[in-house]
């Protein structure tokens, strides 16, 4: 059977066609009865592959297997990643018929992108600056804690990990709003600082501004750091926990000081955890709007706030989509750059 001999090409073709069908369905390329046709094509292609696998003999099955195994993942991505991204990019290049219209006409409207940069440049900068600082802070705070739990935790390891995670069972929103009570102008922390006469020091450090702890850039960065700490701590803990204690003993046997043993053995082996933690922290933090909304002031808004405002208050889907697309592309670029510079091959 010639068909069976070219089973790998058929498998690839079927994968591509079915992915395309799912994108078409998800992104709404067609309307009405045409969707049923697309669905029929999808079902036929998938059924065809199954038929080929069943009746094509062992060689055909062998050639088809890789594509069959890829299918669930790729089709999932086609429906839940490619189709939404397609819609996002399409709307970002569209114009509205009128101010309150819900119809978007595709028009290669690049001015949406120029508006995203010209009107919201400051928000982009702040988003990346704040999330960068917050990521550094989560490493500075999270690494020692993970280290202590992994190497000194003993039989309390699970208890200590639990203590790190349990506060995060509460809603994200509630925890963030709780900070605004704790840091309020007449709240406990500010009163304590003024009793101790530390307000001037904090003002000099730029943590406080005009006697306020909350509604400052420092509060926004602090909120991001707090909220994303477990996402840094847990991957670092996992990679530290896997390190064989004998490696450290070996370093000590070879007359390494504890500092050098940490620097040359433990730290390099924990880098995959740091890398994964950085991604898990930086990416959501850059798009976050909750912290800036509740802990910030009108001069500390991040790009997430602007996107939310354009989507949910101004009804300006084209500009909001353009901003989202720019955010996605710039985060991807930053992460690629980061992984080239510091990435390890053994990403956990």
């Amino acid at each position: 059977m010639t068909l069976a001999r070219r089973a790998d090409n058929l498998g690839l073709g079927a994968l591509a066609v079915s992915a395309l069908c799912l994108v078409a369905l998800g992104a709404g390329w067609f309307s009405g009865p045409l969707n049923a046709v697309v669905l029929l094509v999808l079902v036929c292609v998938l059924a065809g592959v199954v038929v080929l696998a069943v009746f094509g003999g062992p060689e055909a099955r062998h050639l088809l297997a890789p594509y069959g195994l890829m299918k669930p993942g790729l089709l999932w991505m086609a429906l839940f990643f490619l189709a939404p991204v397609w819609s996002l990019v399409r709307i970002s290049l569209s114009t509205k018929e009128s101010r309150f219209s819900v119809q978007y006409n595709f028009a290669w409207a690049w001015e949406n992108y120029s508006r995203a940069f010209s009107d919201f440049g400051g928000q982009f900068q702040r988003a990346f600056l704040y999330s960068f600082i917050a990521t550094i802070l989560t490493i500075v705070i999270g690494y020692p804690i993970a280290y202590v739990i992994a190497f000194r935790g003993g039989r309390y390891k699970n208890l200590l990990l639990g203590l790190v995670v349990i506060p995060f069972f509460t809603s994200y929103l509630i925890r963030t709003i709780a900070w605004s009570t704790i840091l309020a102008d007449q709240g406990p922390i500010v009163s304590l600082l003024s009793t101790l006469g530390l307000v001037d020091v904090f003002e000099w450090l730029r943590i406080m501004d005009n006697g306020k702890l909350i509604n400052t850039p420092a509060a926004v960065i602090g909120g991001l750091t707090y909220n994303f700490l477990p996402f840094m701590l847990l991957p670092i803990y996992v990679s530290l926990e896997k390190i064989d204690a004998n490696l450290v003993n070996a370093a000590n046997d070879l007359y390494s000081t504890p500092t050098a043993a940490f620097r040359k053995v433990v730290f390099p082996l924990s880098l995959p955890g740091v890398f994964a933690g950085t991604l898990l922290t930086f990416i959501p933090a850059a798009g976050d709007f909750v912290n800036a909304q509740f802990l910030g002031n009108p001069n500390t808004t991040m790009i997430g706030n602007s996107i939310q405002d354009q989507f949910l208050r101004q009804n300006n889907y084209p500009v909001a989509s353009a901003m989202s697309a720019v955010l996605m592309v710039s985060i991807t670029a930053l992460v690629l750059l980061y992984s080239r510079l510091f990435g390890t091959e053994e990403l956990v």
Partner: protein
Amino acid sequence: MNKPTNSGARRNPWTRREFLMRSGALGVAGLSLPALLAACGGGGGGNALVFDNWPLYIDPSEDGLVGSVERFAQASGVDLTYTESYNDNDEYFAKIQPLLGNDKRIDPDLIAPTFWMAGRLINLGWVDKLPLDKVPNKSNLEDNYVKPPWDPTGEYTMPWQAGTAGIAYNIDVTGRELKSTADLFDPAFKGKIGMLTEMRDTMGLILMSQGIDITTISTFEEAAAAFDVLEKAKADGQIRAFTGNDYIDDLVSGNYAACVGWSGDVLQLGKDSPNIRFVVPEEGGTLWADVMVMPKGTENTDAVAKWLDFVYDPVEAAQITTYVQYFSPVKGVQEEVAKLDPELAENPLVFPDAATASRLKSWANLSDDVDAQFADAFSAITGA
């Protein structure tokens, strides 16, 4: 399409990429979630009624009193679902736009947008005429709301409550009584001033403090200087936050020295916290009304009529007024409130006397283009 490879060493970049793509997919899913939420919910038929109103805007059942929702349900037998998810005009509009704009109906049979938003909904054809012929108590409607500027025929709207935006302040923080909108820009209160995201209230006060008449304003140029004032105050760090109804928490906790606030909210608050005060600025405060409209396609018009008739009965309306302390659009409420709470009936912030009324101004109807200019300029400053 990437060809799958079997070598173990080269699989690692794949996992990373997959990971990134999934993060992206989650982000996109997050953005479309509100649309999904808005699409939820079915319709009710017959003797049911869903009223979506602003929070804390009706008398609850407490302290031995039976709230209006329960009283109405008992008196009429209508299955009333009273929800409080109307938090902000722009937000709510963005939520209902994809449905009403595509000729689908929304869950509530009755909503209470602010007058200018009601005007927009009427112009878009997204609301139905009220069943006024089945509302005998419509004769109790105050005269100035019978054919108001936002609803020239008077067929689409009946006010729920009206009120004024003025200055709310915490005297423990300010250390002095405030009188004027200019006090909001006093450098002594740097970083302790709140403004509302409701453009007409925040800008209305600033415009009036510049001597501009908001009842006749028709171009953006007239307001440009006022927007500059707000922009400068924001850049200087004078303004702590732009908020919706949640300004109340910051006012009570002392984070705000003063803010633009709504009369009834602050009066309700003042019952428990005497340090919270409200003043109509000497330059003038804005007068607004939240009006009940029926979104297009409502089926339960009989139940809507029963509800309107119920809340336009001065005896029932007085119960609501006593609790919410806003201006009632119902004739005869002041007399009924006098029976319940004589002191409240004399309060000029609930029943404006001539001196107070002369300082209250309501916004002109802005044309669509001008309204868009105002909204854009305002959102550029609020920064969100």
